[in-house]
């Protein structure tokens, strides 16, 4: 966890009491109304992922990885985004982040190739796993 964060992010914290002025300033800017709220911002300070409320170890790390993948996706780094999304499915298949990552891995492949087969393959993958998730419903339109 520490390694992942320090390698991929500049970590900053605003505390509701100890940094009250900063908490108010950035809480308003980013719409943080509850703690813990963890935002993953790209290098330009644009929010790319949000985690609200406590999550235990693997769930938290997989959500952090989801944000890191979404940053690559937003930068249209399709191959890197797909790789990051698939890493979540491979390492943390039982977390809530996994089906979301599987969905976006397929979208990343499609965006990088403009080939519909990757969306169809993703829809097929959802027929074999994560069938009861929102992401399976969203992918069902692809075939």
């Amino acid at each position, binding site marked *: *966890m*520490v390694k992942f*964060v*320090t390698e*991929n*992010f*500049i*970590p*900053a*914290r*605003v*505390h*509701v*009491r*100890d*940094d009250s002025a*900063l*908490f108010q300033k*950035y*809480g308003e800017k*980013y719409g*943080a109304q*509850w*703690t*813990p*709220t*963890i*935002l*993953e*911002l*790209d*290098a*330009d*300070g644009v929010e*790319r992922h949000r985690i609200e409320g406590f999550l235990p170890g693997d769930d938290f790390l997989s959500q*952090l990885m989801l944000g*890191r993948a979404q*940053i690559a996706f937003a930068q249209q780094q399709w191959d890197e985004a797909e790789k990051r999304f698939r890493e979540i499915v491979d390492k943390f298949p039982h977390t809530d982040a996994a089906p979301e990552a599987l969905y976006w891995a397929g979208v990343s492949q499609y965006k990088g190739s403009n080939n519909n087969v990757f969306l169809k393959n993703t829809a097929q993958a959802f027929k074999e796993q994560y069938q009861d998730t929102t992401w399976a419903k969203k992918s069902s339109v692809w075939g």
Partner: protein
Amino acid sequence: MEIQFRHDVDNVLAEASQQKKPILLDFSAAPM
């Protein structure tokens, strides 16, 4: 080993832009 969080968010935002490195911004109420 713990994450060394910074609290100078204005500087963090400026440095992130220069370094092209993303930011993890934690709004916390945990004891410090």
